[in-house]
Protein backbone atom coordinates (compact mmCIF):
# COMPACT_ATOMS: atom_id res chain seq x y z
CA UNK A 1 0.00 0.00 0.00
CA UNK A 2 1.12 3.54 -0.59
CA UNK A 3 0.37 7.26 -0.13
CA UNK A 4 1.58 9.79 -2.70
CA UNK A 5 3.66 6.95 -4.16
CA UNK A 6 5.34 6.36 -0.77
CA UNK A 7 5.31 2.67 0.09
CA UNK A 8 3.93 1.70 3.51
CA UNK A 9 4.30 -1.76 5.02
CA UNK A 10 1.69 -2.43 7.72
CA UNK A 11 3.67 -5.24 9.40
CA UNK A 12 6.49 -2.87 10.40
CA UNK A 13 6.77 -0.47 13.35
CA UNK A 14 7.44 3.26 12.83
CA UNK A 15 8.38 6.35 14.84
CA UNK A 16 5.74 9.08 14.90
CA UNK A 17 7.54 11.08 12.21
CA UNK A 18 7.98 7.99 9.99
CA UNK A 19 11.72 8.43 9.64
CA UNK A 20 12.54 4.82 10.44
CA UNK A 21 10.95 1.40 10.30
CA UNK A 22 11.61 -1.37 12.81
CA UNK A 23 11.08 -5.11 12.39
CA UNK A 24 10.94 -7.62 15.24
CA UNK A 25 13.19 -10.67 14.78
CA UNK A 26 12.72 -14.11 16.33
CA UNK A 27 15.83 -13.85 18.51
CA UNK A 28 14.56 -10.70 20.27
CA UNK A 29 16.65 -8.34 18.18
CA UNK A 30 15.21 -5.54 16.06
CA UNK A 31 16.10 -4.56 12.51
CA UNK A 32 16.08 -0.84 11.69
CA UNK A 33 15.81 0.87 8.31
CA UNK A 34 14.80 4.08 6.55
CA UNK A 35 11.27 4.64 5.32
CA UNK A 36 10.39 5.51 1.75
CA UNK A 37 9.56 9.03 2.99
CA UNK A 38 13.02 9.37 4.56
CA UNK A 39 14.97 8.18 1.55
CA UNK A 40 12.97 10.53 -0.69
CA UNK A 41 13.68 13.54 1.52
CA UNK A 42 17.37 12.65 1.69
CA UNK A 43 17.78 12.28 -2.06
CA UNK A 44 20.53 10.14 -3.52
CA UNK A 45 22.36 8.73 -0.51
CA UNK A 46 26.13 8.74 -0.84
CA UNK A 47 27.31 7.55 2.53
CA UNK A 48 26.02 5.40 5.40
CA UNK A 49 28.00 4.83 8.57
CA UNK A 50 26.67 2.68 11.40
CA UNK A 51 27.85 2.75 14.99
CA UNK A 52 30.37 0.01 15.78
CA UNK A 53 28.91 -3.35 16.86
CA UNK A 54 28.82 -3.68 20.63
CA UNK A 55 28.18 0.03 21.14
CA UNK A 56 25.32 0.88 23.50
CA UNK A 57 23.09 3.62 22.11
CA UNK A 58 20.81 5.44 24.53
CA UNK A 59 17.43 6.63 23.28
CA UNK A 60 18.03 9.79 21.30
CA UNK A 61 21.53 8.85 20.15
CA UNK A 62 21.64 7.89 16.46
CA UNK A 63 22.22 4.35 15.26
CA UNK A 64 23.82 5.60 12.05
CA UNK A 65 24.66 8.69 10.03
CA UNK A 66 23.68 9.24 6.43
CA UNK A 67 24.81 11.79 3.90
CA UNK A 68 23.39 12.71 0.53
CA UNK A 69 24.21 15.52 -1.83
CA UNK A 70 21.71 17.82 -0.13
CA UNK A 71 21.04 16.33 3.30
CA UNK A 72 23.02 15.04 6.23
CA UNK A 73 21.75 13.67 9.47
CA UNK A 74 21.12 10.77 11.79
CA UNK A 75 19.17 7.56 11.59
CA UNK A 76 17.40 8.31 14.86
CA UNK A 77 16.92 5.90 17.71
CA UNK A 78 14.01 5.80 20.15
CA UNK A 79 15.03 3.15 22.69
CA UNK A 80 18.25 2.08 24.36
CA UNK A 81 19.92 -0.69 22.42
CA UNK A 82 23.22 -2.33 21.56
CA UNK A 83 24.37 -2.42 17.95
CA UNK A 84 24.69 -6.01 16.70
CA UNK A 85 25.70 -5.27 13.12
CA UNK A 86 25.37 -2.84 10.27
CA UNK A 87 24.30 -3.96 6.82
CA UNK A 88 27.69 -4.14 5.14
CA UNK A 89 26.15 -4.51 1.68
CA UNK A 90 24.29 -1.23 2.12
CA UNK A 91 27.23 0.53 3.76
CA UNK A 92 29.26 -0.34 0.66
CA UNK A 93 26.44 0.67 -1.72
CA UNK A 94 24.20 3.23 0.04
CA UNK A 95 22.16 3.83 -3.12
CA UNK A 96 20.31 0.62 -2.19
CA UNK A 97 18.52 2.73 0.44
CA UNK A 98 17.00 4.76 -2.39
CA UNK A 99 16.17 1.75 -4.52
CA UNK A 100 14.57 -0.59 -1.96
CA UNK A 101 14.36 1.06 1.46
CA UNK A 102 12.39 -1.76 3.08
CA UNK A 103 14.86 -4.42 1.99
CA UNK A 104 18.06 -2.40 2.48
CA UNK A 105 18.04 -2.48 6.27
CA UNK A 106 20.55 -0.29 8.10
CA UNK A 107 21.33 -2.06 11.38
CA UNK A 108 20.32 -4.88 13.69
CA UNK A 109 20.14 -3.93 17.35
CA UNK A 110 19.37 -5.61 20.68
CA UNK A 111 17.02 -3.49 22.80
CA UNK A 112 18.19 -3.20 26.41
CA UNK A 113 14.72 -3.58 27.93
CA UNK A 114 13.51 -6.16 25.43
CA UNK A 115 11.65 -5.91 22.15
CA UNK A 116 8.23 -5.47 23.75
CA UNK A 117 9.22 -2.33 25.66
CA UNK A 118 11.11 -0.89 22.70
CA UNK A 119 8.25 -1.46 20.27
CA UNK A 120 5.72 0.03 22.68
CA UNK A 121 7.24 3.43 21.85
CA UNK A 122 6.43 2.98 18.14
CA UNK A 123 3.37 2.83 15.88
CA UNK A 124 2.08 -0.07 13.77
CA UNK A 125 -0.91 -0.97 11.64
CA UNK A 126 -3.82 1.40 10.97
CA UNK A 127 -2.53 4.09 13.34
CA UNK A 128 0.85 4.08 11.64
CA UNK A 129 -0.68 4.11 8.17
CA UNK A 130 -2.88 7.09 9.03
CA UNK A 131 0.09 9.06 10.33
CA UNK A 132 2.32 8.03 7.45
CA UNK A 133 -0.22 9.16 4.86
CA UNK A 134 -0.96 12.36 6.77
CA UNK A 135 2.72 13.31 6.73
CA UNK A 136 3.11 12.51 3.03
CA UNK A 137 0.07 14.64 2.17
CA UNK A 138 0.71 17.46 4.63
CA UNK A 139 4.29 17.95 3.39
CA UNK A 140 3.41 17.07 -0.20
CA UNK A 141 6.02 14.33 -0.30
CA UNK A 142 5.91 12.25 -3.48
CA UNK A 143 8.25 9.31 -3.17
CA UNK A 144 10.67 8.32 -5.87
CA UNK A 145 12.85 5.28 -6.09
CA UNK A 146 16.17 6.17 -7.60
CA UNK A 147 17.79 3.86 -10.06
CA UNK A 148 21.54 3.42 -10.21
Amino acid sequence: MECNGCEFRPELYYDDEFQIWVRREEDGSLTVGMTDISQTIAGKILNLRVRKPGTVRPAGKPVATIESGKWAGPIPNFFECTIIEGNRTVMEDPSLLNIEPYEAWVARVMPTEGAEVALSKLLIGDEAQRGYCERARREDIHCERNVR
Partner: protein
Amino acid sequence: MSDHYLDNEEKKVVIMMTSGPSTPHRCATPFFLGAILASMDAEVDLFLTMEAVKLAQRGVAENLAAMAGGKKIIEFMRDAKSAGVKLHLCLPALPGYEIDPNAEIIAEIDELSGGGVLADLVLSADRVLSF
Protein backbone atom coordinates in the same frame (compact mmCIF):
# COMPACT_ATOMS: atom_id res chain seq x y z
CA MET B 1 36.49 4.76 3.42
CA SER B 2 37.91 1.48 4.65
CA ASP B 3 35.58 0.97 7.60
CA HIS B 4 31.98 2.10 7.46
CA TYR B 5 31.51 1.68 11.20
CA LEU B 6 31.57 4.75 13.44
CA ASP B 7 33.75 4.48 16.52
CA ASN B 8 34.58 8.07 17.47
CA GLU B 9 34.37 9.51 20.96
CA GLU B 10 32.03 12.37 21.66
CA LYS B 11 33.63 15.71 20.88
CA LYS B 12 32.72 19.33 21.40
CA VAL B 13 32.92 21.27 18.14
CA VAL B 14 32.45 24.99 17.53
CA ILE B 15 31.69 26.20 14.02
CA MET B 16 32.32 29.91 13.63
CA MET B 17 30.55 31.23 10.57
CA THR B 18 31.19 34.68 9.10
CA SER B 19 30.00 34.11 5.52
CA GLY B 20 26.71 35.70 4.56
CA PRO B 21 24.44 36.62 1.65
CA SER B 22 27.21 38.33 -0.33
CA THR B 23 28.84 34.88 -0.76
CA PRO B 24 25.86 32.50 -0.98
CA HIS B 25 27.97 29.58 -2.21
CA ARG B 26 29.71 29.62 1.21
CA CYS B 27 26.50 29.52 3.22
CA ALA B 28 25.33 25.89 3.09
CA THR B 29 28.42 23.85 3.95
CA PRO B 30 28.82 24.97 7.58
CA PHE B 31 25.28 23.82 8.40
CA PHE B 32 25.71 20.61 6.38
CA LEU B 33 28.94 19.74 8.16
CA GLY B 34 27.39 20.65 11.50
CA ALA B 35 24.56 18.20 10.83
CA ILE B 36 27.01 15.40 10.05
CA LEU B 37 29.09 16.11 13.15
CA ALA B 38 26.04 16.24 15.40
CA SER B 39 24.72 12.97 14.03
CA MET B 40 28.14 11.47 14.85
CA ASP B 41 27.58 12.40 18.52
CA ALA B 42 29.54 15.64 18.52
CA GLU B 43 28.14 18.48 20.59
CA VAL B 44 28.02 21.22 17.96
CA ASP B 45 27.61 24.96 18.58
CA LEU B 46 27.38 27.03 15.41
CA PHE B 47 28.01 30.72 16.00
CA LEU B 48 26.80 33.24 13.41
CA THR B 49 28.89 36.38 13.52
CA MET B 50 29.97 39.23 11.20
CA GLU B 51 28.05 39.02 7.91
CA ALA B 52 26.60 35.62 8.81
CA VAL B 53 24.20 37.36 11.21
CA LYS B 54 22.22 38.43 8.14
CA LEU B 55 21.22 34.77 7.67
CA ALA B 56 19.24 35.07 10.88
CA GLN B 57 17.27 38.06 9.60
CA ARG B 58 13.74 37.04 8.67
CA GLY B 59 13.36 36.60 4.91
CA VAL B 60 17.06 36.22 4.08
CA ALA B 61 17.86 32.50 4.47
CA GLU B 62 14.38 31.62 3.19
CA ASN B 63 15.27 33.23 -0.15
CA LEU B 64 18.95 32.34 -0.43
CA ALA B 65 20.52 29.26 -2.02
CA ALA B 66 24.16 28.25 -2.35
CA MET B 67 23.62 27.54 -6.03
CA ALA B 68 21.01 28.57 -8.55
CA GLY B 69 17.83 26.55 -8.07
CA GLY B 70 19.33 24.73 -5.09
CA LYS B 71 17.99 24.01 -1.64
CA LYS B 72 17.39 27.13 0.42
CA ILE B 73 19.81 27.98 3.23
CA ILE B 74 16.98 27.93 5.77
CA GLU B 75 16.53 24.21 5.00
CA PHE B 76 20.21 23.55 5.71
CA MET B 77 19.78 25.44 8.98
CA ARG B 78 16.73 23.35 9.90
CA ASP B 79 18.52 20.11 9.01
CA ALA B 80 21.40 21.11 11.27
CA LYS B 81 19.02 21.89 14.12
CA SER B 82 17.16 18.60 13.63
CA ALA B 83 20.48 16.78 13.92
CA GLY B 84 21.20 18.56 17.21
CA VAL B 85 23.25 21.62 16.27
CA LYS B 86 22.75 24.65 18.53
CA LEU B 87 22.57 27.94 16.63
CA HIS B 88 23.96 31.07 18.28
CA LEU B 89 23.54 34.58 16.94
CA CYS B 90 26.18 37.19 17.78
CA LEU B 91 24.35 39.95 19.61
CA PRO B 92 27.08 42.62 19.34
CA ALA B 93 27.21 42.20 15.54
CA LEU B 94 23.52 43.03 15.00
CA PRO B 95 23.65 46.86 15.17
CA GLY B 96 26.29 46.99 12.44
CA TYR B 97 23.84 45.26 10.10
CA GLU B 98 20.85 47.23 11.38
CA ILE B 99 19.10 44.11 12.60
CA ASP B 100 16.58 44.46 15.41
CA PRO B 101 16.99 41.47 17.74
CA ASN B 102 13.47 41.90 19.07
CA ALA B 103 11.66 41.92 15.75
CA GLU B 104 13.54 40.38 12.86
CA ILE B 105 15.16 37.13 14.03
CA ILE B 106 14.11 33.76 12.62
CA ALA B 107 12.75 31.18 15.06
CA GLU B 108 15.56 28.74 14.24
CA ILE B 109 18.06 30.71 16.35
CA ASP B 110 18.55 29.09 19.76
CA GLU B 111 20.53 31.78 21.56
CA LEU B 112 21.43 35.43 21.22
CA SER B 113 24.99 35.31 22.53
CA GLY B 114 27.71 37.81 23.30
CA GLY B 115 31.41 37.60 22.55
CA GLY B 116 32.10 36.10 25.94
CA VAL B 117 29.94 33.10 25.10
CA LEU B 118 31.90 32.55 21.89
CA ALA B 119 35.16 32.86 23.81
CA ASP B 120 33.99 30.26 26.34
CA LEU B 121 32.87 27.94 23.55
CA VAL B 122 36.21 28.24 21.74
CA LEU B 123 38.24 27.62 24.90
CA SER B 124 36.19 24.56 25.87
CA ALA B 125 35.96 22.99 22.41
CA ASP B 126 37.91 20.04 21.08
CA ARG B 127 37.78 21.50 17.57
CA VAL B 128 37.02 24.96 16.17
CA LEU B 129 36.12 25.36 12.49
CA SER B 130 35.76 28.69 10.71
CA PHE B 131 33.87 29.46 7.52
